[in-house]
């Protein structure tokens, strides 16, 4: 193993790994957005399908990320807004918000029409107690109560929305999520730009 061999070895291995590293980075970049699209599509699509209706575009690709607040560590938090269009015209906007539930955050996806009425609400993620808290997701009548109501309506329990008996904490979580969503929506209405 003369010195010349060692140097040749170092050169070859370094060049090969560097070239491979660079090549992979290029592949990474060219597939990056497609991968994020697939990830979002795979997670959000089921919920979007429940609440959006009568659209002819792919809401997952017509999406927009808007900075809507800061989290504890000061890093800004962005919410993705999905545009559902019909013949180029935006008919509804869907976005997701969260609120603390019984055993963890309850994620709620809302669809709002430009004229300010609620088109649909669907629970996406939850870790509530199975059979009790999860009824907010399984029982369609609960989420149906939100449909058609104007954004200015009072979504807290007892007013226009009746909570599920025995699952008050989860129901309040959903209504809080909807309320924070509405507030978020009205605050950033101008940025949505449609």
């Amino acid at each position: 193993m003369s010195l010349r061999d060692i140097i040749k070895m170092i050169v070859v291995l370094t060049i090969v790994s560097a070239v491979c590293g660079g090549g992979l980075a290029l592949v990474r970049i060219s597939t990056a957005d497609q991968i994020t699209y697939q990830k979002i599509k795979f997670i959000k699509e089921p919920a979007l399908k429940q609440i959006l209706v009568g659209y002819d575009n792919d809401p997952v690709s017509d999406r927009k990320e808007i900075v809507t607040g800061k989290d504890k560590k000061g890093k800004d938090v962005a919410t993705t807004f999905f545009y559902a269009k019909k013949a180029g015209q935006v008919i509804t906007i869907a976005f997701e918000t969260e609120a603390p539930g019984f055993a963890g955050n309850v994620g709620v996806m809302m669809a709002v029409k430009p004229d300010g009425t609620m088109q649909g609400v669907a629970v996406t993620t939850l870790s509530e107690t199975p059979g009790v808290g999860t009824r907010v997701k399984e029982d369609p009548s609960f989420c149906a109560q939100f449909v058609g109501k104007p954004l200015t309506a009072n979504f807290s329990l007892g007013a226009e929305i009746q909570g599920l008996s025995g699952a008050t904490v989860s129901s309040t979580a959903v209504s809080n999520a909807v309320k924070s969503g509405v507030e978020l929506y009205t605050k950033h209405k101008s940025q949505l730009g449609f």
Partner: protein
Amino acid sequence: MGPVTTAILAMGGLGVFLSILLGVAAKVFFVYVDPRIGQVADVLPGANCGGCGYAGCSDCAAAMVEGKAPVNACKAGGASVAQAVAGVLGISAAAAEREVARIFCKGDSARAERKFKYMGINDCRAAMLVSGGDKSCSYGCLGLGTCVANCPFGALSMGEDGLPRVDDEKCTACGTCVKLCPRHIPKVVPVSQKAASLCSSHDVGKLVKEICEAGCLGCGLCKKACPEKAVEVVKFLSVVDHTKCTGCGKCFEKCPTGIIQSLVFTVV
């Protein structure tokens, strides 16, 4: 710094670091290995799949060089690799020359020490299951006659000294005894081989002296005495390369235990 450059730098840096590490280690920890093992290992596929039962290609190559493993032991390589290995080792795979099995152990009941009295099934493989056989030498022949019983051509018979004897005429080098023997004592060698060290022990000489009067001590005197450079000491065991050996017999007197001896003798 764009993502591409970070990737290149990260991978390049890792490459440099690892290759320098390997280079330095190779230099600092250099150790001499029989070159033929390297040549055979090159020819083997190197996939280290373990299919041959050995632990990877270099180990299989070492076994082939020592003659423990047949040339076609490498299952992954198939026939083409067997040809190539035979080429490197100088023995032709389709040995035109007749081969015969030889018993590479001379530690008979008189000269080899026994750890305990074995009373189990009269089969070497079964004896092996009882804490590795009753012989102190962990490489020596147990003498319970599995090979004799299973030789399809009846070429093997149990000598009165407790070691199997090969009948050159009947032996067709089919290799059954080689395969069956749990200690790989019988080996198939060309009939023309004139001399061999009839021992399989890789133990250090000091240990062999205590447990067997006939064992090879790996002292290398035969290697020095051999004018043809035909003898190699591989892991404390002298191995005769039959292509170079002329049977001059210079090594026979030098060997302290007389284990290296002439193979050319008339059928008794």
